[in-house]
């Protein structure tokens, strides 16, 4: 047999393979990378809007909205038997940690969720500010800086002592509220004038920037110990006199499912069931059976409701009282009563009246909530209905969420005037309040007090994620309400720094320190 010599062939092919087949480049196919994006002006625009998208997350459960609402006297999540205990966190947020929770406050999901989401927006802005195509355009850079300032504003308002970063990969360390205030004051003063004064739906304009200034200056006393009411009034005046905004004659038009472009909106999150998702209030507040009322595409979760005292703070004739969903609920036909066979009918504690649904099966939202925990009746509590729930709504509402609107800015200006003059019946301020109040069916105020102004702000701004900010500024955040005893722990006025971030930065040069008292 002829001898076959395979060796050279094999060695040769092995050698070829070794040379050509050690290529380990990773070419990603289903994600954009710096190698292929952005290439055109349209694509640059698409990245410019990126830091806005983090705001969409602010209006679901355990985000910004949750922290501004259920920590106050206008909303809560009671423990409904087996539902919504969730480690005791929702109740502890409402009772300012006076009720039992498994985790310490710094470990609560709402704090880390809100913090991480805000800094993701800040980092996106920091990344884009230096991106070619944006960096050389002062108006675009200014818009990103003002948007970043909004994130920093609500971090300052909530957490106080926060790290400051203006460049991706760099952290200037944890600053005091006064330092952050100074940063924002300068940043907004420089950049707001560079923004467009024309309408720009969904985006920050000059007027929105001015509105952030109104809030920053109105609360300056809280952040720095020094009041800045003149600056607040000036910024508000600019908006009121020059912005071209108007009050909606019908209060609920501000919040309807088709409220986009409302003349009262200064800046709104442009929610949409398909494209800009995240505003899921019907899921959070409605009862399971309410699915039939609105033909909702998914079953709601029966969580958020308002407090009886807050509901009763509205006069019967106040049109804004329709912001609550109350009483017997009907199917979409408006005739068929919704019933809940599963209503509580078993006595579980010694107090018979406390744990049995008084009117039985009919689905009836009662202003009275029998107890905050553990056995709040599932049908108890009036629901948050200021934003219209359209028939056939999905978990993602079409309603835009106004962050700033003219009516609120007018109340802010009035308050600044009152506080500046230390007179809550100052006629200029009073006129502004009455101007806003005119559409509610309620008579004008002839005079006001600090408490009454706070109550009126509550009625006007209910569900708009400003209540906590107002209560702190009015010194009422520690006051008692249903589910919460009075406390005098002033440290509660700031949220704790999230534990996961303290862990993440431990041992580094910019290690985070916990806020005093936690």
């Amino acid at each position: 047999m002829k001898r076959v010599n395979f060796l050279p062939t094999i060695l040769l092919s092995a050698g070829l393979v070794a040379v050509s087949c050690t290529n380990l480049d990773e070419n990603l196919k289903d994600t954009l990378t710096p190698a292929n994006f952005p290439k055109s002006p349209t694509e640059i625009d698409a990245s410019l809007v990126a830091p806005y998208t983090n705001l969409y997350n602010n209006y679901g459960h355990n985000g910004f909205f949750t922290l501004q609402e259920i920590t106050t006297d206008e909303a809560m999540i009671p423990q409904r038997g087996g539902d919504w205990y969730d480690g005791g966190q929702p109740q502890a947020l409402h009772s300012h940690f006076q009720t039992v929770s498994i985790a310490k406050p710094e470990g609560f999901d709402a704090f880390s969720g809100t913090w991480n989401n805000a800094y993701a927006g800040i980092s996106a802005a920091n990344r884009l500010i230096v991106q070619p195509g944006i960096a050389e355009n002062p108006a675009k850079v200014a818009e990103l800086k003002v948007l970043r300032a909004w994130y920093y504003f609500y971090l300052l308002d909530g957490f106080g002592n926060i790290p400051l970063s203006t460049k991706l990969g760099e952290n200037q360390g944890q600053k005091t509220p006064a330092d952050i205030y100074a940063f924002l004051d300068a940043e907004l003063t420089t950049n707001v004038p560079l923004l467009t004064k024309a309408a720009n739906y969904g985006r920050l304009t000059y007027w929105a920037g001015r509105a952030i200034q109104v809030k920053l200056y109105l609360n300056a006393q809280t952040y720095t110990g020094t009041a800045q009411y003149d600056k607040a009034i000036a910024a508000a005046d600019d908006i009121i006199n020059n912005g071209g905004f108007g009050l909606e004659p019908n209060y609920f038009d501000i919040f309807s499912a088709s409220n986009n472009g409302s003349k009262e909106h200064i800046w709104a999150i442009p929610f949409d069931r398909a494209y800009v998702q995240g505003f899921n209030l019907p899921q959070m507040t409605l009862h399971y059976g309410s699915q039939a009322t609105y033909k909702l595409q998914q079953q709601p979760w029966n969580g958020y409701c308002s407090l009886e005292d807050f509901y009763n703070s509205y006069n019967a004739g106040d049109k804004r009282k329709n912001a609550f969903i109350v009483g017997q609920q009907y199917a979409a036909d408006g005739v068929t009563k919704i019933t809940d066979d599963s209503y509580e009918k078993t006595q579980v504690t010694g107090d018979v009246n406390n744990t049995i649904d008084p009117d039985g099966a009919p689905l009836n939202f009662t202003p009275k909530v029998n107890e905050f925990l553990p056995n709040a009746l599932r049908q108890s509590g009036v629901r948050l209905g200021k934003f219209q729930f359209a028939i056939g709504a999905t978990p993602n509402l079409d309603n835009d969420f106004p962050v700033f609107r003219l009516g609120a800015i007018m109340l802010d200006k009035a308050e600044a005037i009152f506080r500046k003059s230390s007179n809550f019946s100052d006629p200029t301020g009073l006129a502004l309040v009455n101007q806003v109040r005119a559409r509610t069916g309620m008579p004008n105020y002839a005079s006001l007090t600090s408490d009454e102004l706070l109550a009126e702000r509550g009625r006007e701004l209910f569900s708009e994620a400003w209540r906590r900010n107002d209560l702190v500024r009015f010194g009422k955040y520690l006051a008692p309400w249903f589910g919460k005893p009075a406390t005098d722990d002033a440290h509660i006025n700031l949220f704790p720094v999230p534990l996961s971030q303290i862990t993440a930065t431990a041992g580094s040069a910019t290690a985070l320190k916990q806020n005093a008292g936690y």
Partner: protein
Amino acid sequence: MIKFYLLVKRLLPVVFLASCYSMALAQDRAVTGRVTSKDDASSVPGVNILEKGTSNGTVSDADGNYKINVGANATLVFSFVGYATKEVAVGSQNKVDVTLDSDVTALQEVVVTGYGSQEKKEITGAVVSMKQESFNRGAIQDPSQLLQGKVAGVSIVKAGSDPNEPFTVRMRGLTTAGANTSPLYVIDGVIGASIANVDPNDIASIDVLKDGSAAAIYGTQASSGVILITTKKGKAGKTVVDFNSYVAMDNIAKSVSHMDRAQYLGVGGTDLGSNTDWTKQVTQTGVTVVNNLGLSGGVGNTQYRFSVNVRDVQGILKNSGFDQLNGRFSLQQQAFNGKVRFSLDASSTTRNTNYSFQEALRYAVTYNPTAPIYDPGSNSPTTGGIYYEASLFDNFNPVAILNQNQNDGKKTTINVSGKLDVDILPGLTATGTYAIQRENEILGQYYSKYAYFRGFNRTGLANRNTNVGNRDVLEMYLAYNKQFNDLNLALTGGYSFQERATQGYGVSTGNFLTDALGYNALASSQDLAKGGLTTLSSYASPNQRLIGFFGRANANYKETYLLSASVRQEGYSGFGLGNKWGTFGAVSGAVVLNKLFDIPAVSNLKLRAGWGLTGALPPTYGLSQTQYGQSTSYGYSGGGLIPVVNTTLAPNPNLKWEQKQEINVGVDFGFLNNRLTGSLDVYQRNAKDFILSRPIDASQNVASTQYQNLGEIKSNGVELAVSYAAIQKSDFTWTTTLVASHVKSVLVKLYSGTETATGLPEVGSALGAPGQNSTYTIQNIAGQQVGTMWGPTYQGVDASGNPILSAAPGIIGHGLPTMDLGWTNNFTYKNFDFNIFFRGTFGHQLINSYRAFYEPVIGGQISSYNRVNTKYFDPNLKNAQWSSYYVENGDFVKLDNAQLGYNFRFAQGSMVSKLRVYVGGNNLFVITGYTGTDPEARLTDSGATDNGAVNPAPNPLAPGIDRRNNYFRARTVTIGVNLSF
């Protein structure tokens, strides 16, 4: 062990007496018989047959027949290459038929070690080789089941009896907190091939490389061990047809205990007027039929085997199950006097799965037992169709779920591989392998427009997803073997190229005119016209490459001193630029003591020691690169909608290989002529730099978490396997095998190691809705075992029904088991064979989620949700709060499987060579204190499920949670037949 020793001691005299008895009856005469192989009942020609103690002998003919004249008290010794030598006392018999085992005597076993094989006596690492005789029996649907409990240190776990759920396989406990906790599979030499494409009936042997020194030849994918599967091949000779068939019946062995109508009403439940046993309504006797036909043979230089496997499997949940068609073809061709050898393997599996809805089991537990199935006032505007539905969170009519909706899929897997061996020079062989794998899957779900469960108000909802996977492997290596006087040297070196890519897309859309076409008419969705509820998704991975250069040297001096060393340099495309390549390796040695010293009664005593360094791959691709993702969100520009591009991943360009070092010391032993054999291994593993997501400073990064090389886990373990051929008579044999393993994995550190228990972020272990979101049950604490259950201690109940809990939370359990036991007994008596296998797992606790949610008599719930009812039920407890009350011991012993078979004997020349019928059972009973459905350890966590949502990435850092989506446990009875001709 003590019991086992006593058993041996008691039985030895019996064996001794029995052999004396046979001697007394012996006389001088002719004996005939036939030698067959136990593997496939084929005749074995050329067997040496020797009368023991004499030079009198003969050889079996082409049909395996022999004839020999023997003296009184003769014992015949049958020996042949590849088979265990067998001694048979002739006694009074004139005809002695013998079946030869291809294993039993460990010393002659050939062990597949990766890029070649070695004789077992040459092995220096912790390696276990299993032939099909030792596999588990009964209703086996998944190849990994064959090994369950049989190999010390290999845990093969599935809680509940869902036929569609794969087993979780862990070798030597949890090695890594990263992604690769499952061993690497190598099928017929093809690295990483799909085990789902191998029918259990086609497997000839399984080799398990347990320690780092054995596995290191596979480098980066080997940290969690390697399982090598060899399928059956054709043999030269006559054509053999094998037919195996069985019918199995699954019945509920244990469901979640809940109250019946009377009990529920007794604790305050609402009476809706009916009496419905929801569990009975949604379950069935699952009937499974499996048929396997194999055809093999060979002519000249060609051998082949062809097989077809048909499985029709039903689970105990109605609708759940699959039907599967698998085909396998293998061909071996030799040429040039055997110097060139070519083999081709091809297999294909098509599986049609009906996933059904496990939610039906979940709601069967919690649905009101007094509720009717159907709503008398049908078409209720508040809840949809004709079924009774309550307006409640996470509470749906279980019968309606099954009857109204559809959830199924189809997957095809094809593997083809070719291998060429060429003997270039004496002792030098070149091998090339090329293999492809193609996977194709399509999934569909449809929720009726009348289904309150997901379809209601969505007016019908259809989901479709497809996934396509490609995998290509090219390997080339040279093997050189040379004998230098007393020293044998074997060298192997080569190149390995693996590339895989996956892609797919998904559509979810609703609003259909009619349910009639289910998910098959996506274009009928009115979502398109009505705007915006359709969701689309797609993905396509990069070509993920893994390239390696490897080498191994084995030295064998006088079969007494053994040394092995291997090295593998490997690169992976998914790491950072400077970190793509890593070098792994191993050194191990052994000394065969019985060759050095003559120790009485010792037939084998080998001491082994080894060290190995292996690596592991990251959980997904692209982690080292900046990614902007796809433009899936929107914003506004100039008043109009525009797509938005953002980045949410913090890339880590420094991402590198995880490293695991392992030291293993072992001893293999054989006593009494290898009637008693076994091995003992002690090891320590140290894994560090595993790839895990951790929180980072959110203020200066685009995300608040990042994948990093983190932490350190140290594991210590001991493994023992002992096998004793207690009785070896021609008509009665008994072999008993015990395997035991202990392992404890301690987290040395996760991040810096200084975090306090509560300073660590949660690991996805929250109990979930309703009411127990943010309720984390597992913490990973430095210095403790991985997966420590963390919470307050339950101290009783107060007057108002609230639990009294310890003020501070603490350690209240551990999710990972510390000990596994398996005890096999094989008996043959005349034509009967009987095998019985017990399996136990110890040292783990389980969090009983059903109890944690639904056992307390909660005010808001009691009038609407049924109650779980175990021995822990306390009518005074009225508030559900996480505590040690819901942590239970998971220790158990199971009668895993038992089978009784009868072998019919056929006259020589008969067409049928083997006919065996059997009856058996799996999961026949369980001894445990656990009150849930199944005390098996939960090695990973699927996450909280809300209304049945599924978390696709199981979390290895949160073991021990018995979630509410677990399938009930079944007991299986099997009747079957094995036929060869």
